[in-house]
């Protein structure tokens, strides 16, 4: 199954591997056929350790110790044992006889005091605080060589008047340039000023002209309007007077025969009356009528009474006649 083995050089065009990376193989399933790699997800592999590993018991990778390892250990043990044995076999001083003691003695030329006490003294050392570093002395090299002197006389190095010319030229040139600039600026300003002034003058007098014409127009239109208004007034007045005259004539004519008509109507309405006649009518006649009424009333009453009397009489006579009739037929039947 491991068709891709170590040392397989597979060129991808970009990269060559001495050992091509390959995924972890899943546990071999003997039943299935192996045509290609069947790799499983490494996260779900049972062989992968999960979680913290600092508290785990680390089992040795193999259950049995490696035989080579054990061989080495055995050899080591044997070597140490051998050394021990040799140490013991070495010649040592024999044990002291009875009543005697072994003492260590120095046999060198000069005796040394061997003691465990080590003489120790305390010693302190401290640099002075705030001590400035002393200034280094001036390094004056030893004098060597010959003494030589020199002096520059006037006029030897350079000629001042000649040398100062270019500097002066530059200075003067710059000053003049600056001055020219300022003068030009002022001239420009003056030019602008003059232009502005000319414009202002033109503007003023054109303005005056415009205003004058405006005023003229205004005056003319006002005048015209006034004239027109006047004319209208005149016309209106004429019309009014004409109407007044016409109205006057008409009223006169109308009123001419109004007067007799009025009089007649008034008279017919009884506004012109004779007071005596009125008085007679108002006072006398009602009384007269009332009296007449009374008299007539009396007559009526009298007539009525007469009527009732006659009625009574006739009824009585009728009754009598009826009685007579009842009597008379008897009489007649006989």
């Amino acid at each position: 199954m491991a068709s891709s083995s170590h040392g397989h050089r597979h060129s991808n065009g970009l990269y060559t591997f001495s050992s091509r990376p390959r995924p972890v193989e899943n546990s071999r399933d003997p039943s299935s056929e192996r045509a290609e790699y069947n790799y499983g997800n490494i996260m779900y592999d049972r062989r992968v350790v999960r979680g913290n590993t600092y508290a785990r018991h680390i089992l040795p990778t193999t259950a049995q110790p490696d035989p080579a390892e054990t061989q080495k250990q055995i050899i080591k043990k044997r070597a140490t044992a051998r050394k021990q044995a040799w140490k013991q076999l070495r010649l040592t001083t024999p044990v002291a006889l009875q009543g005697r003691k072994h003492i260590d003695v120095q046999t060198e030329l000069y005796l040394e005091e061997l003691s465990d006490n080590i003489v120790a003294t305390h010693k302190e050392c401290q640099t002075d605080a705030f001590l400035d570093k002393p200034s280094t002395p001036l390094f004056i090299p030893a004098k060597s060589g010959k003494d030589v002197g020199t002096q520059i006389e006037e006029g030897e190095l350079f000629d001042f008047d000649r040398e100062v010319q270019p500097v002066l030229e530059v200075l003067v040139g710059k000053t003049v340039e600056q001055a020219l600039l300022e003068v030009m600026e002022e001239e420009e300003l003056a030019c602008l000023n003059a232009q502005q002034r000319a414009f202002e003058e033109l503007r003023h007098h054109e303005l005056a002209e415009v205003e004058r014409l405006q005023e003229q127009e205004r005056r003319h239109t006002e005048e015209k309007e006034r004239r027109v208004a006047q004319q209208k007034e005149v016309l209106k007045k004429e019309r009014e007077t004409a109407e007044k005259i016409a109205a006057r004539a008409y009223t006169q004519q109308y009123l001419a025969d109004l007067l007799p008509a009025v009089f007649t109507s008034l008279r017919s309405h009884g506004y012109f009356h004779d007071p005596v006649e009125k008085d007679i009518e108002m006072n006398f006649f009602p009384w007269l009528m009332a009296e007449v009424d009374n008299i007539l009333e009396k007559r009526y009453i009298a007539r009525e009474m007469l009527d009732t009397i006659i009625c009574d009489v006739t009824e009585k006579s009728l009754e009598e006649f009826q009685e007579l009739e009842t009597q008379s037929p008897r009489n007649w039947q006989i």
Partner: protein
Amino acid sequence: MDSTRAPVAFGRWDVPLLFGRLQQPEAAERLRSLASLCDLMRDPERLYRTVTGGFLEQLLDLLKDEDPSVRSRTCELLHLVTAHSIGRQAVLSSSLLPPLTQLLDDSSSSCRINTLRVLNRLALLPAGAESLLYLVPQLMLKLQQQDKDDGDDGDEEEVLLLSTISCCSRLDALPALASDGVSLLGRKLTRRSPEVRREAAASLMELSIPVEGKRQVCEGAVLPVLIGLLQDEDLDVRTNAAGVVMHAAIITEGKLRCLHLDVVPVLLDLLSRQPEEDERSKALVLYSLRALTALAEAPGGRRLLLEQLPLLARRTEDRDRDIRRAAQTAVRVVTWTP
């Protein structure tokens, strides 16, 4: 080396270094640095670098300094900065205007004069005039104060004040009119110095453009003074006075008053006196012609001018196109019949 100037570094480091020196506590040191800066600012390149480097904000503190010479030097520096349009725009857009206006009431006169110079330059720009419009009442107040102490040395301040006012009024004359400008300027017309008179007449000319101004000019006692100024020695004063008369004569009341004050012969005299080739008297001729045109619309004026028609006709053959046109209009108006 010059002891009144601080040393200047080389190349690009000159301006930043000097500005850094301005923070020092000693006033003399600051003065020296300011003097060097004033010299340097005449160069447009350095000016551009100063403005774009945003160094002008540091001048804010200097404007409130205790030492008056430091303050006046700072104003001089600003005066140089406003010589170019980029500087003007920077000053207008920065917050330097309020401290500047405070300096107007400063105790030292050189400081005041420099401040006024700065404001004057700013007012020449239309955007600047717009920003300075709110200052006009304050400036008028200052003029009034100047009136009280009638000294010769206050002239330069007056001239600067008046020219600033006239520039602002060019944009909008109403604030100046509202603070009683006409009568104040009328008083200034009688000052000794010709510059003051010239500037006062110029401001009056601006103020008399709106109708309200014209009416005020006619009502006040200003017209006789102006007509007196028409015979002044200085050409500019005459020109400006003629301009005011021209504007005032447009409304009917102005016409009547001018005729009443007998201004026509004066103007005609001015016309005939000017030599014809003089460039600067062109404005005077134009204004006089226009004033005469306006006056000719009134019947009284027309009658007077009909007699003087040949004089006007002579001006129609003048070399300059504008004068010719103005003269032709005048002749046309004079010979117009309803």
